[in-house]
């Protein structure tokens, strides 16, 4: 019975697991403290579709904000053809209500909560 070896192997494995635990904790805490929760930028209610790095603002009868990340693999949707939003990576298409119309994506775009300022010129989006 080589108890010393077993002890050392267990200790190493244990410390490795502890290290993994610390890493996960540190990274998640860092993410929570550095990711902004709200974004504000100028708003134009007469523009049908506004593309941003992270969001798409669509103003029809009411204004809705969707995540600009395709639900397939997260690529940034940056164009509209006809009345469809098209992802440049693999061609997934969404209509102007964020509903997926053509795959490979199968989930609708994530809708985000947004508030328009009283003077109608700024929009604040919760990420």
């Amino acid at each position, binding site marked *: 019975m080589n108890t010393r070896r077993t002890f050392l192997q267990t200790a190493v494995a244990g410390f490795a697991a502890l290290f*993994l635990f610390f*890493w*996960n904790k540190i*990274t*998640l805490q*860092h*993410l929570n403290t*550095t*990711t902004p929760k709200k974004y504000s930028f100028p708003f*134009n209610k*007469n*523009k*049908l579709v506004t593309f941003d*790095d992270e969001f798409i603002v669509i103003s029809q009868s009411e204004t809705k904000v969707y995540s600009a*990340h395709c639900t*397939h*693999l*997260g*690529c*940034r949707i*940056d*164009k*509209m*053809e*006809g009345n469809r939003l*098209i*992802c*440049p*990576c*693999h*061609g997934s298409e969404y209509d102007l209500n964020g509903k997926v119309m053509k*795959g*490979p994506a*199968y989930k609708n775009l994530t809708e985000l909560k947004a508030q328009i300022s009283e003077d109608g010129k700024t929009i604040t989006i919760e990420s």
Partner: protein
Amino acid sequence: MKQKKNKTTFGTLAVAMFWLVVLSGVVLAVPFDMTDPYLSVSNMMMLNPWASLLRNFHYWSSQFFLIFSLIHLYDHFHYKSRIGLKVGISIRLSLSMLIIFLAMITGFLLKGDADSVQARQILQTLAERIPLIGRSLAYSLLGSTESYQLIYVHHIATFTVFIAIAMVEHSRKYWPPAIDFVLSTLGILIISYLLSAPLHDNLNPAVKGPWYFVGFQEILHWLKHPEWSLLIFLVVLVLVYFVNTAKEKVMFRSKRSLLVFTVAYSILTIVGLFFRGENWQWTTPWSEHYKYSVLHSFRTPHVEFSPEFTLEAGVNAPVIQGRKESCLACHTETHGFTDSHSAEAIGCISCHQGNPFATGKEQSHRNMILIPGNLATAPLTCGTTQCHPEIVERVPKGLMATLSGMISVDRFTFNEQDNPDLLTSVHELGNTPADEHLKNLCVRCHLGNPKTELGPVNEFSRGGGCLACHLNYSEDAEKELVENSGGLMKTHPEISVKVTNNHCYGCHSRSGRISTNYEGWHETTLLASEMPDSSNYRLIEDERVFVKEQEDVHHQLGLECIDCHHSYELMGDGTHYAHQEDQQDVQCSDCHIDGTPRTIAAENLDNESAIIAALRFGNISGKQFLVTEKHERALINTFVENDSIWFLTKNSGKKMAMKAPAAQCTRNEAHSDLACSSCHTAWAPTCIGCHNEYDPNERGYNMITNREQTGSWVEYIGEYKAKLPTLGIRKTEGKTEIIPVVPGMIMTTDLHSFTGNEKDGTIFHRLYAPAAPHTTSSKGRSCVSCHNDPLALGYGEGKLEYLIDKGKGKWKFTPRYAADKNDGLPADAWIDFLQTREGKVSTRSNVFPFSVDQQKNILTVGACLTCHDENSPVMQRSLNHYEEVFAKQSSKCILPDWK
């Protein structure tokens, strides 16, 4: 004798490549800027050819490191004997395979272009979907989206160190044989000089990952749950482990599986590289956009050690969309743009394409579009995502691009279709007699016809896509173009909203001639040599003689075409219309308003109108604009203020008050069905007596292919005069109105001359066409000019007399023109006297001549007018109280006897 330990294998070459990568990477860190990778790489390519060479060296040595490592694997795997590595080493080797790919992909990400940004996003999403540790793993690997810090750290340190350790551990070598270094360096240097490492121009819509992951991307695009693809990775690594350590069966099966996987993956890679274009769509090599969407990513310049511009010019060239464009380093003094299209704002390649990172003339100009804006290339230039995609989508569906009405009516008159309303397009012309006729004589006037020569838009221009309206040469630009003998030109024409009447002229001085009518010029049948030397005559296109007539009152006031016709009419609103009156939106009543104007506040304008209004007129907040009745579009050069309606000319900002229509125009009694133009048209060009014949020996032209040919339809015209128009009826869903019509086609077509078929004779038609002559007069036409005029009623010119005999009155018509042998009616008539026609009577299915009863009503009033002056009290009263006046006629009144 060669010693075994110095033998050159793919393994040793891979080691050599690795050290070359590390060495070139260390030096590359000097010009590379982690805080703005894309800009620093474009700077390298443009201003630092040695850095560019080194970057290529780093790229190619890393690609070959990967390739040689894979071949090295194959080298060892294809033997039948057992490899039998220890478990520990084998695990680390499998892991290092993964790390090699991570090192490569982080290098790919570090150039920061459009490909990299999307690849980064995909990697993040894939990593995040790993259970439990996904989110931390993704962030630890890639960091936040704004910073490349973590990617850089892992690329230069974490992965490099791991690979180095694994490499040395299993090969037990630090260095490869010296010859390997020499051969590798030499080979990579040559390739690095000839082929630059890829960099996306951030404009081309096709984005792809690196070549070694393109097969993976193909797999990803089929999977609804793409994270399962990570298992493929895991399985491959496990298979490699098994080949390294397992015995007999397991090892053999693992080897075979790996081989199958490699073959399958290679096929997918070829598919992804050569058959996938924009949006990962399947694109075949013979499709129109193959070159642009697929081959574009393979185009790469060689390194130019002496760029064709000065270093100072290069350093001072502006940064556009996050990177430098080398165009402006040579074309330094280019000016003449509007603010929104200036070189500093949008650069050059967003319109002209070409290579923004090459530094020599030939390479920079490769695949350049000299004249962007033609409809064929508009989606790649004017219509790219960041620019005018919605407009470029609308324009090809509009009538100026499809010519749907023109083509349908032509086919209708050639008896190839039984109604003139079918939707079609100029791109769908075939070889029928009508289609050949169109190709010979008509269809050059469509927006899709490309502009192929530099120079301003003038009366000779036909088509040109966006440029047909929006291209403007300043005097300087025109002068420089004429005087230029091959050197760099500095004055660039502008793309602007300054659309003048000149732009419309080329096409619209033909057919209905509205451009020339509007300015008060009527085309004669004189030859250029016969033109009198007088200011009343004018030569257009060097051969057409025009005589002065009355100009449109709006032209007199200084209004241009675009002052009435707005962008949703001209560029289309996305609907494929059958005829011009359907696509057209503005009506007289939209500006000359009776009652409360229809308005829209500036805050509620659609985005496009708001931008253009602000561009033209400055601050528009608080303004109320007029809105059209038909399609509800804002007229941005109008506004309502203090109960007055104001009008501004778009190009010159001239302000004028809008007049309401006169009382006689808005009463609801007599004439309520008349369109404004029925009374307020001064004259319209009318042509009669046309004959069409095909001459197989005539020098002709094919306007679709833009090539000369032998054989063409020839039109022989009879007479062409400026006259007051005839009146006809248009019945639409909403209303019935009386409109001006002109003899569109009273003509014969010799079909037999084209088809050679005995059964085909000569087609005869007597069709009138609805007209919008654009010769508006401020004073309406006189009563007798309609009620007592045979031409207005549709009988043709001649003597219309009211003969009174024995207390009875009878109308008599003596035509001026001889009867046409085809149907016995006078050459210029629409209908016979006091008769009507049905069937093919006009170029529309909803336009008709007056019925017999209507003619009788008109001529009854005409009879009154033979005695009573049109301004007399009784005639004026009859306008509002006709029945009453009619009932009170005196015994002296002699009404027409219709028997």
